[in-house]
């Protein structure tokens, strides 16, 4: 019991300590005045409008798609599912870059085709659109999983009561999947409200500028000490919004019904004559929302002059690849991501092995904290060296401020949820008698864990490692705020190049991210089957 308590305190301190420091930073500030000042209200409005738009887009595309793919005989279901899952593995910033290349009012490729000024991706609408596309998996995947769990007998009972296949689908299965979809939409809202890269890319330079809470926090941090206090007050507002959404999403998810009976194999609903038209429509949506922006990024990386069709070039590729700065950033990203993935996997395993639900929740909590807020909290906590004095004698000095170690800490704290959740699900699926059989065979508890339990956890732990590694390799928000000046990781390099007018070189790095993520998908595919 004592060990549990100590562990809880340690995890709690890591998860919430920095947030506490951040709160204390804002103590001297007039909170009400800051919250009701016109710039804050404008930023809040920006966050709510763009996030609401993104959540609605994710819901209107994600739910019908889940029904079509999960419950009908639509052709090319696997391709569609893979394509619409992809955005969750990529930083939304890359989709944003793609859309800048496509729909920059003056130089976007679409505007070159259809006439200058036809499309404008800058502003609230554009932010909502890009974040909505990136958030589709948040609605699509839970809805799909929920549909797969609906007992086939429920639909069959509707059929036996006289309903047509379509009627049974719409009247029974879709309502049962709705709570999961709505819960996903709330997460999409949270995802959009926490986003930093896209609102920065599409909001700050828009006319008129569309600030959001995250971009305001960033610009306040740049101001310095005075701004830091205001930023902490804004963070509290964003944090409260996040907590509200998370509670809402949980409450909605509680409405998800698990199947009770065994149910037979479920037949997909035949679409009949509508089969191919619907497939064509789905493919078009997929092309516009997922493929087109990625193609635009690829095209940008080989265009001699941005915004002009004037042949192809490899100059961006050769300059980026031969640049010492790129190599330096890639090495640092690789080391940090491998380190973070290893730590997340090992710590996740250790925490989940305690088999305490609340400990898992506690360790997973920082994942829901918006990246900007988490980064800011760590920044303020470690701005000065932290000293621990043990036994009045030994002093530990933790001087993380302005080092890459702080970024490693941020990666681990943020993504510990991956490790804990995967390990925890793994433990839940391992038959305890496998371990007990090893004990009866003569193995000590430690030996039984190594020989009998751990081998069953290879797949979930491997998944935790890969997901954490990929997420950290392509991470942007934490990196931008926490990386010391003069050093780079790939995410900050991408951000700098895009922000300071070298979209061609930025596109090269974005292409590398896309290739990395696609490779990982192919590597992982056989394991799932």
């Amino acid at each position, binding site marked *: 019991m004592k060990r549990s308590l100590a562990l809880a305190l340690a995890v709690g301190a890591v998860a919430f300590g920095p947030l506490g420091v951040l709160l204390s930073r804002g103590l001297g500030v007039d909170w009400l005045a800051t919250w009701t000042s016109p710039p804050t209200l404008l930023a809040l409005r920006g966050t709510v409008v763009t996030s609401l738009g993104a959540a609605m887009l994710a819901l209107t595309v994600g739910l019908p798609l889940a029904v079509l793919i999960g419950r009908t005989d639509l052709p090319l279901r696997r391709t569609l599912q893979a394509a619409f899952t992809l955005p969750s593995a990529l930083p939304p910033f890359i989709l944003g870059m793609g859309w800048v290349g496509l729909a920059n009012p003056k130089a976007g490729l679409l505007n070159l085709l259809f006439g200058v000024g036809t499309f404008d991706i800058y502003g609230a609408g554009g932010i909502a659109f890009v974040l909505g596309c990136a958030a589709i998996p948040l609605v699509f995947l839970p809805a799909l999983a929920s549909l797969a769990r609906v007992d086939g007998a429920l639909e069959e009972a509707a059929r036996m009561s006289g309903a047509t296949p379509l009627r049974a689908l719409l009247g029974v299965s879709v309502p049962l999947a709705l709570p999961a979809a709505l819960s996903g939409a709330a997460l999409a809202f949270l995802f959009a409200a926490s986003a930093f890269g896209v609102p920065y890319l599409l909001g700050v330079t828009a006319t008129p500028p569309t600030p959001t809470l995250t971009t305001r926090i960033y610009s306040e941090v740049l101001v310095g000490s005075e701004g830091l206090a205001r930023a902490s007050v804004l963070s509290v507002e964003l944090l409260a919004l996040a907590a509200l959404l998370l509670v809402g999403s949980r409450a909605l998810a509680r409405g998800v019904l698990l199947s009770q009976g065994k149910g037979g194999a479920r037949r997909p609903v035949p679409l009949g004559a509508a089969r191919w038209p619907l497939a064509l429509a789905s493919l078009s949506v997929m092309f516009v929302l997922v493929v087109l922006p990625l193609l635009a990024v690829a095209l940008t990386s080989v265009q001699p002059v941005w915004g002009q069709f004037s042949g192809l070039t490899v100059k961006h590729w050769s300059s980026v690849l031969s640049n010492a700065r790129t190599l330096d950033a890639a090495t640092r990203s690789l080391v940090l991501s491998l380190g973070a993935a290893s730590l997340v996997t090992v710590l996740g395993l250790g925490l989940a092995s305690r088999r305490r639900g609340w400990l898992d929740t506690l360790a997973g909590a920082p994942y829901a904290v918006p990246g900007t807020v988490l980064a800011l909290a760590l920044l303020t906590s470690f701005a000065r060296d932290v000293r621990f004095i043990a036994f009045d004698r030994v002093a530990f000095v933790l001087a993380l401020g302005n080092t890459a170690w702080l970024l490693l800490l941020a990666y681990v704290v943020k993504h510990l949820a991956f490790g804990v959740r995967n390990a925890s699900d793994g433990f839940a699926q391992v038959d305890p008698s496998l371990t007990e*059989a090893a*004990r*009866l*065979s*003569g*193995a000590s*508890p430690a030996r039984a864990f190594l020989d009998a339990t751990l081998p069953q956890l290879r797949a979930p732990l491997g998944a935790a490692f890969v997901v954490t590694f990929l997420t950290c390799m392509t991470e942007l928000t934490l990196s931008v705020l926490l990386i010391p000046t003069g050093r780079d990781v790939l995410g900050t390099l991408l951000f700098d190049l895009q922000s300071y007018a070298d979209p061609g070189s930025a596109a090269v790095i974005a292409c590398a991210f896309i290739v990395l993520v696609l490779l990982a998908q192919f590597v992982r595919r056989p394991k799932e089957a």
Partner: protein
Amino acid sequence: MATVELEQVFKQYGSTPVVKGLSLKVEAGEFLSLLGPSGCGKTTTLRMVAGLERIDRGVLRIDGRVVDGPQVNMPPERRGLGMVFQSYAVWPHRTVAQNVAYPLTLQGLGAQEIAARVQEALGWVRLQPFADRPPSQLSGGQLQRVAIARALVARPKVLLLDEPLSNLDAALREELRGEIASLRATLGTTMIFVTHDQHEALALSDRVAVMNHGVIEQIASPEQLYREPATPFVASFVGGANVLTGTVDGSTFTTHGERFELPGEGPATTIAVRPEHVRLGEGTPLRLLARLFLGSAVEYRFALGDVVLRAVGPAVEAARVGDHVRVGFSQVRRYASPAES
């Protein structure tokens, strides 16, 4: 071969008592079954013997040595037992031979000796041809035989079997039941077998302990248990008897508003009548609810007040469902205490 002794053992989960003052001695080389409905505490008792659960109060001795009790708790790996689990618990990441070899590997034996003893153990369960297969290629019955070989390979003092047959289909269950019986005859290992199936318990055991609500209601040989059930619960759980509560006046028994003539005399508040001792054609008229053809016999169900009286007899009655049929008892057991489920 070793003895297992439980003395006044108590166990509770939270505030729910599961085992209440259980005392039991399993003799060396004996096959003892713990029989009872789910939740009666039989699996918990077995897991306490294994060392997978601590006992709250009382003493547990294996081979005369205290392994769990006040100030003593020997971990499972040092008790020298073997166990077969309901879910097989065959490690999916090891081949059949590697599974069976594991207990010997932990003892630090040489590779040659391990290989020889694994072959021998696989021979006991006729699985030699499958030695190098991964468990994913085996059927349920084969998996359970791997588990049995693994549990026996190190020659344990006692083999514990936790409902090992209940995940198998009927034919396999009978086959494996026979194999357990012949293994036991060859090896002579002390075995404790947990089951909720009275046929398994009666067929395999030297003695059966019938458990209910955390206590042993009766411990006896299968024959004695069947012929002389000590409590109404044992009569109904083991023999499928009708248990009726009522009042006796001379040889007349009144229950659920009907009167029956009982064979013999004696005081009773509860009687147990096995279905084959319900005689049709003479006695008290009861309404026939259902007629179930069982092959060698027919089961009849009668309405007796608000309960059902079951009878089994030859298929000669022309009685139809809904008719009233005269019913009497040819043999009953009397109990002074009221029935308790």
